[in-house]
């Protein structure tokens, strides 16, 4: 009976809504079709793909390639083609952000615990962890990766958006009408609704009162992604430390927006632009304007 709980499919507001849980997020597909069988099949494809990506790239498991890489103790690890693609992508993002987006920065969490408390680590603590951070220290040559013992990689900053785009790719061939994919706030619209209208996506400002609507985005196709999490921060001596850490300094990016939402053609692109923007701190807005995209900066 537990397996039956994995996917629920319900008819609401003339849409089939399929829901499941993956990558620690509520995931849903809104399908503008009367065809229940098709809806179920598409949701099943989405669920399987999301679970597959979670299983393969989650850093919380000990049976996947990420675990193998992070526990290689300095040995070279051969990776499969898909992992190589994502490592290449992470490498390009590292270059494009001048080292600010770094998949090895996760170990900083050992000293930074964003639990709303005032436990700000000391400079020496940060320094000692920082010695294990830096994509430039990783030797990545297709298809083998070598890094020092104690370093870790984390594809968490890419995984959910990748899953949204992958699901979009997989279900697109079967579509006869519009679908909206939403994995925990990272969205992708595939075609307008049956009545020709675009999908309307409300962006909430979670810092304000519940369900306060900060903006409304209309989408026929394309993606929306949000970076930043307003609930994860520390406050000490009146200073708010956001959870976006600068891998060069080991400290939170100063004056970073609480959250950035962007619109782009793919979810990976939207998500990465939002992440880049936040890493620019006070310069986030300028950066986003230069990219000539629709965005919302809170």
């Amino acid at each position, binding site marked *: 009976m537990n397996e039956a709980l994995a996917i629920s499919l319900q008819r609401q507001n003339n849409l089939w809504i399929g829901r499941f849980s993956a990558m620690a997020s509520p995931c849903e597909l809104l399908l503008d079709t009367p065809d229940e069988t098709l809806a179920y099949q598409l949701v099943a494809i989405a669920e399987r793909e999301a679970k597959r990506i979670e299983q393969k790239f989650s850093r919380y498991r000990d049976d996947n390639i990420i675990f193998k890489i992070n526990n290689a103790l300095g040995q070279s690890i051969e990776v499969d083609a898909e992992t190589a693609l994502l490592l290449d992508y992470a490498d390009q993002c590292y270059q494009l952000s001048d080292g600010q987006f770094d998949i090895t920065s996760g170990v900083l969490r050992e000293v930074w615990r964003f639990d709303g408390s005032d436990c700000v680590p000391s400079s020496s603590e940060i320094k000692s962890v920082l010695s294990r951070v830096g994509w430039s220290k990783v030797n990545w040559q297709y298809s083998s990766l070598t890094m020092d013992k104690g370093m870790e990689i984390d594809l968490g900053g890419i995984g959910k958006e990748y899953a949204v785009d992958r699901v979009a790719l997989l279900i697109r061939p079967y579509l006869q009408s519009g679908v909206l994919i939403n994995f925990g706030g990272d969205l992708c619209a595939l075609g307008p609704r049956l009545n020709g209208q675009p999908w309307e996506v409300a962006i909430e400002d979670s810092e304000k009162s519940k369900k306060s609507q900060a903006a409304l985005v209309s989408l026929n196709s394309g993606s929306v992604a949000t970076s930043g999490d307003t609930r994860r921060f520390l406050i000490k001596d009146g200073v708010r430390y956001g959870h976006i850490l600068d891998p060069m300094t080991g400290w939170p990016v100063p004056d970073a927006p609480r959250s950035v939402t962007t619109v782009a053609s793919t979810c990976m*692109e939207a998500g990465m632009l939002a992440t880049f923007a936040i890493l620019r701190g006070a310069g986030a807005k300028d950066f986003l304007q230069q990219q000539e995209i629709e965005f919302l900066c809170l």
Partner: protein
Amino acid sequence: MQLKNKKWPLIPTKPSIRNALTVATCTVLSSSLSTVSFAEEEKSDLSKIGLSTFFYSEEERVSVNTTHVAIENDLGDGSFLRANIIYDTITGASPNGRIIPAAADGGNIPFTSASGFSISINDNGSTGKRWLTEFTDKRAALNLSLERPITRTLKGVIEGNYSSENDFTSYGASGTISWDINQRNTTITSGFGVLNESVSPASGTPLGLGVSNCNDTAPVLPTWANCNITSPRFGNGKKRMFDGMIGVTQIVNQRTITQLNYSLGVSLGYLTDPYKLISVVDNTIDGEEVMILYENRPDRRTKHSLYWKTVSQLSEKKVVDFSYRYFWDDWGMTSHTFDYKYRYDYEPKSYWQPHIRYNLQSSADFFQRAIDSSIAGLPQYASADYRLGKLSTYTIGLKYGQELGVNGSFTVRAEYIVQSYSEVDLPNMKALVYQGTFTFKFK
């Protein structure tokens, strides 16, 4: 001609970062189509094999050792072929229905083996165990089932069973249909099955309420007793059982699913247990056992049961599973069973599951501890089988499950069972259950 010193229209400089990101993401996604789809194909259509060893041990009574192999073959297109192979060895002693003598030296009936082959009845009064039947047996069972979608909302399962022991064979078939309605939030299930069983004690099947043995030294025997004729024996005892079930499973919300089933079963034929006895006691001489008869049950039984189960996911890590069963039959028995399991995923790949269960059962109309020798005539039916008497059973248990890599998992569980009786003289039965199961998926 003059070239006007015209200002060239400003070509918008492509935002370099965004442009580069667009190219990078497109590369990942388009390449992933060729590299990943194969891996995904390989994942599906996996077959599963489960190996399980089960050990059940009642204190001073029956022990059962079971080896179970379960195979599930994914035939694709939603069809599954499943096979279960079970092998049991059963040893120990089971209460046979005779009274437990009040005096330490036991009764006076010299008692010989009742029904042969795998059975011997001790009449060792001094150890007070003559109320137990010792036996050993081996059982092999095979179950095959095929599950197949019929239409997009209709699914069928057909099943065949065969089981064999030294003195017992059983074979049957069943079919179940599940129908998804209400936008797949509701499933209606209905099934029907037939089972044939045949029991063949080595020395024949005794006639119900026939005489097994008499106490030669008893001062008075009932007028209806004829100790010169022990029970005639006939061949196999045969019975046939028909079972029907209808149920509804409803998804209440994303986290809760509930199920209600009604089952009806009709058994016809030789429903008596050929190894169970009932004592005839003379209450004028301190309830001393003067005769032993074979038990006798009606040759028809209609059983009903209502079963309700709810599984609810309280949070990401916690699942509760509660069920209640109410059972009643036309032999006058009723039973209530409450079952509660709480699953806690304490890591992404392992869980603990405590389990408690309580069962309360009332006795059959013809159940009696012993037959009073002063009655004018024999009742039509009588049984002193403790399983037909009033009893209550408590079970507490704990299960641990863990995934092994991507394609394997194992579970271990232990349970402690206490059964107590209020209408027979038996001491409480205490039993332990251990089970270990390994499951592997393979291509």
